[in-house]
């Protein structure tokens, strides 16, 4: 399992959080229970299985919703 943090542009609408959360949870390879979308710090934190999905794939899914990714990092746990 890898632990990832994605820094997004400043989130302002609370429904953004819902959207990103649903989109990220829906990806296979992402541990559903670990997904945390932080409104004020505008970050997404989650665990994922690097064999099934890459960090870039998750970023793409979030960008597809219209949110800009500023920085991301993943670490093996």
């Amino acid at each position, binding site marked *: 399992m890898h632990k990832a943090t994605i820094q997004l542009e400043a989130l*302002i*609408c609370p429904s953004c959080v819902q959207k990103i959360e649903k989109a990220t949870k829906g990806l296979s390879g992402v541990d559903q229970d670990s997904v945390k979308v932080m409104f*004020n*710090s505008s970050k997404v934190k989650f665990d994922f299985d690097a064999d099934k999905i890459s960090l870039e794939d998750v970023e793409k899914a979030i960008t597809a919703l*219209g949110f800009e990714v500023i920085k991301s990092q993943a670490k093996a746990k």
Partner: protein
Amino acid sequence: MSMQRYILSKKNPIIVISAVLIVLGFTSAMVFHNETVAVWSLAIASVLGVAPIAIQAYQALRVRVVSIDVLVTIAVAGAFFIRNFEESAIVTFLFLFGAFLEQRTINKTRSAIKELTEMAPESALKQMENGEFVEVEVDEVDEGDILLVKTGAKVPVDGAVLSGEGYINEASITGESVPVGKEKGSSVFAGTILDNGTLQIVAERVGEDTTFGRIIELVEEAQDSKSEAERFIDRFSKYYTPAVLVLAFIVWLISRDIELAITILVLGCPGALVIGVPVSNVAGIGNGARHGVLLKGSEVIGDFSRVDTVVFDKTGTLTVGNPKVADERIYGTDSEELMAYLASVEGESDHPLAKAIVEHIGSTEFYPVENTDVVKGGGIVAQVNGHRVAVGNAALMDQENVHMSKEVTADIASFEQKGNSLVLVSIDSELKALLGIRDQIRPGVKNDLKKLKKLGVKNLVVLSGDNQGTVDLVAQDLGLTEAHGHMLPEDKSAFIEELIGKGKIVAFVGDGVNDSPSLALAQIGIAMGSGTDVAIETSDVVLMNSDFSRLPHALGLAKATARNMRQNIIIAVGVVLVLLFSLFFSEWMNMSIGMLVHEASILVVILNGMRLLRYKLRPTREEK
């Protein structure tokens, strides 16, 4: 896809063009009575304005979320369908312009925490294999790497100085801005700034493991932590938005009145309710972070604001925590030998009283110490030079079968009366010495406690392992309501449990080293942290740099933040109720006014939250 992103990136120009078109539309209708131009410009403004909203709605629906965008898009489409272009143009414009203002203002509420996170070091000069130092990203530094820190640079990691000398400003960690001298072997902390000199350091902890990294992570988690009420609002809003959609549809089915149905869609937007609490939260925690107070989340703020009983640990909290031997009585002779034994035994312990004794004795011969036995809540017993030496309180002497003469009992009483902690020394079960150790009260504590009372704290209690005399003296000095001595750590936590059982809301203030059970048990555990303690992890509130004077600010801030959240909830709910009421019982309500009031209410809650950034406790009369 790229078309969608292009439109979204052009929101600001769209707002401007919409505004121009709307003005054009209304002037041509009202001044020039040219209906054709009016209709066309308003229709174009509607289509242009709804484009980014519709895209966001589509993106939300794809992941099965009914967002506010969905409601607004349907409402605008409906208005367009019944050829009410005025409404559709104005509603889209207000929605976009509102979002623009929200972004600006909400960033302000987050500014305090952003300032903190921006203090994190970004790059480091790392020694490569060829011995040269090369600038790298701080993420690329590993434990054990050797780094160069130049004058004016930020220390990138927690580590130890290998060579060089310099002065470091550690304000970001300790809040203390007087530079600290560093030389070979000194510890340095990430995020502090080298004022002058050059240092070579070895990295010991990097990234999120550094003290600074941990503080930032705690603050970041705190600003997004949710209270029970907020989680309820979240769950509620998940069903609320679809419910509004269904309601509007039902109203349309029954009344066949599209105008009414789409007005309901706009009025039902939940904006201010969902955003009100998080903005108060982030502004309040941000204010704390600026003032050396770490509040761990909105749940903590809620509990802390209702505190009526504050329990203090004495040593290191109310007092400086650096006790000194103040009185001394020797029984019998051979005092040099005695002092050497005593220093040898006490050298084994890192108890503050033991440290005070070692310091008091100063340079002496040290003997090897064997069979050291630390008696919890009693003292220490050990074998030195063939003698059994016991150092500790009266209970330990009792256990050691030491006979106390009348003289000794009288001395003990007089020592206690002076506010001393007592340390008795026996050698082979014979009492040899009585030491009185005293700690100074922290400067300013009295005034700080007064402020707490003013903020509505009813009971101020001190608990201590010291004797009752000492504790009573401190309590009297400081005007506390209750004082209990002879307390072991487990007695303290039992006492707190009892208070909670009586329905009190208890905050416990301690240094966290031996008080972790009490810190955990009290509804609010407040740690006096120098920034490196484990207590930071287990407590709910941390006073950075062990600064007691921040406690009143912390409580005042918690109260102000909790109040602010309540205000925002009332504003949000009130606005929705008033709007719905007006819709059914008055004539003046329509979609545009609804959107205007709705957006205004969002801005009002954000601006209200922003006030917390400037919160300051009013100074007391003495301070003025």
